[in-house]
């Protein structure tokens, strides 16, 4: 019996040993407009200066595309199998593959009346985050692309945690958030090598590794207003494409999308880290003929490409969404469509469901 079958027959959730609950996020790629507001929200909050200039704990990349850091999907890391006994060797990307922490002539233009165009100073950039924005693939009239927002997946089997010889990275007991203990970290960067998503970054100024913290002070209500907030990337998102909550909250939309309808899928499941960030795959119109007619049955975004990103289960997920769309068109009820259309905002961020534990 394949793992897929097991999951469809048994909704038992695979939560890491020793973790009480598991934070999770679902991002609906059909809603992402590539505005980078999430990127800016995250950067403003966590990674401005101090050796973090080049870091984007949250980034949005165009797919198909080389991503950030460039070609991260081919940089190794993760596990060799779902037994999680042998890790896959990985590499530390060169700085040029991240790119982007350039100095701009903002003040000259804004305050000194310079007529120069706004551009990076004293460098001739060849790559940076979002460098291949909107390039995509395919030929007119059937070219295609979509946006892929990425944060740390706070994996159930995090290979970054396993890679650290000092146990400086750990999975937080209360909610499974993966953190780098800055006291323990000695900047060896085995975590950077070990993460197949390249979501752990080396801070050369501090000589320590750093990463997305799932905005834990916000979800703990430790901010100035003492209120619980979802992650900044989620709350600031103009089209509100993210759901934030716990995977094991069986009354929440995340559980339903991931475990019941199985339309929210992890990115690159073959890395075997079992991510806790899930994606509703992009649902594109069919291809067009030269004279603009729809070619029914031929997807604009090739299924092979989506399978590359989300595994074979993407077919079943897209079929399920198709079925429920049809159902809604016929005027029937669909809980799935209601969740995806965000008809109940109270369900979007369910972060206090386990507070009484």
């Amino acid at each position, binding site marked *: 019996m394949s793992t897929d079958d097991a999951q469809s027959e048994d909704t038992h959730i695979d939560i890491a040993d020793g973790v009480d609950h598991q934070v999770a996020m679902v991002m609906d790629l059909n809603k992402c407009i590539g505005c980078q507001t999430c990127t800016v929200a995250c950067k403003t909050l966590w990674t401005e200066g101090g050796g973090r200039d080049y870091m984007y704990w949250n980034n949005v990349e165009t797919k198909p595309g080389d991503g950030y850091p460039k070609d991260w999907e081919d940089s190794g890391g993760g596990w060799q199998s779902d037994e999680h006994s042998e890790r896959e060797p990985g590499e530390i990307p*060169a700085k040029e593959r991240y790119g982007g922490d350039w100095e701009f002539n903002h003040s000259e233009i804004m305050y000194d009346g310079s007529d120069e165009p706004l551009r990076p100073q004293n460098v001739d950039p060849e790559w940076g985050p979002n460098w291949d924005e909107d390039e995509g693939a395919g030929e007119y009239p059937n070219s295609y692309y979509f946006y892929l927002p990425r944060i740390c997946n706070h994996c159930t089997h995090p290979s970054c945690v396993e890679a650290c*010889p*000092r146990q400086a990275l750990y999975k937080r007991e209360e909610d499974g958030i993966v953190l780098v203990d800055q006291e323990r970290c000695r900047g*060896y960067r*085995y975590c950077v*090598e070990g993460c197949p998503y390249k979501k752990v970054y080396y801070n*050369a100024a501090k000589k320590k590794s750093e990463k997305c913290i799932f905005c834990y002070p916000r979800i703990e209500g430790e901010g100035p207003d003492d209120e619980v907030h979802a992650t900044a990337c989620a709350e600031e998102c103009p089209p509100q494409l993210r759901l934030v909550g716990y995977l094991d909250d069986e009354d929440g939309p995340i559980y339903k999308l991931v475990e019941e309808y199985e339309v929210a899928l992890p990115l690159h499941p073959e890395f075997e880290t079992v991510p806790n960030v899930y994606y509703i795959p992009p649902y594109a119109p069919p291809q067009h003929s030269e004279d603009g007619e729809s070619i029914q049955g031929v997807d604009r975004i090739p299924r092979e490409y989506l399978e590359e990103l989300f595994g074979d289960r993407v077919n079943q997920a897209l079929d399920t969404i198709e079925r429920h769309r049809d159902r809604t068109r016929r005027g029937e009820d669909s809980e799935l469509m209601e969740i995806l259309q965000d008809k109940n905002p109270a369900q979007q961020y369910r972060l206090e469901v386990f507070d009484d534990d």
Partner: protein
Amino acid sequence: MTEGCERTAPDRSWVGVAALVVLAVVGAAVLPTLSSARPANEVPVGDVGANATDPTAESWTAVPSVELALASAPSGLPEASNVSVREAQVRTATNGSHVFVRVSWPDATADRNASGLREFADAVAVQLPENESARPPIAMGGTSNRVNVWYWSGTGTTEELLAGGAGTTTSFERSAVDAQAVHEDGEWHVAFTREAEMAGNRTDLSGEQDVDVAVAVWNGSYDERAGRKSVSEWKYLAMGPGPQGPPYETILWTVAGLAILFATVVTIEGVRRTRGEAA
């Protein structure tokens, strides 16, 4: 002629005996050092009158050097067995109040930076048992048998660490160890300095007894860091007054030499008398 011969013969034999005695005494003093009677795992501790904090100080030339074979440390890290440094020279000295350990090893590039994402600095560490009387596990000690580690990195930092097993190194809040380094002619020379007498979690090096020692070396440009390193086996700093101390050794060698000489002379004289030559 005959008379003369009879007169000179005893003289010659006494000169011969005297020469043998002198030879034996000189031999007793010189032979042990020539034949290097030093046990294989010993790192002798030289005496430097002044300060030896500078690895290029003239005083180091008088301190005996020991070559340590290095091999990759056992570790589950990727490429752990792929290390580049095969040997290191260690010199240890004291001036009474301080102990100096100088480690030299070949490395063509001086990697002093870790400011690039893929950059690692060269480094060296000297490992000593927290408790001088018990030998800890070589790989960073054990939970009940910890080690002191003196760590110098090419970035210019010197740290004093305490460890009780791989991955447990913890910095002392204030390091009692200083280090100075030079890189010349394709070789690093790093001299560590620490006060000899210390208590608490720090190895006492006041000369009460021999103390175990091991070294580790990292080549930064070869991506070596953490458990990916070249390490020695346990050796020991010959600090204690032990029975193999030089004065005791000299007396033994002298007594043994004289005894052999005495036996030889008595035997020769006995043979001569038996043949009736002396009559």
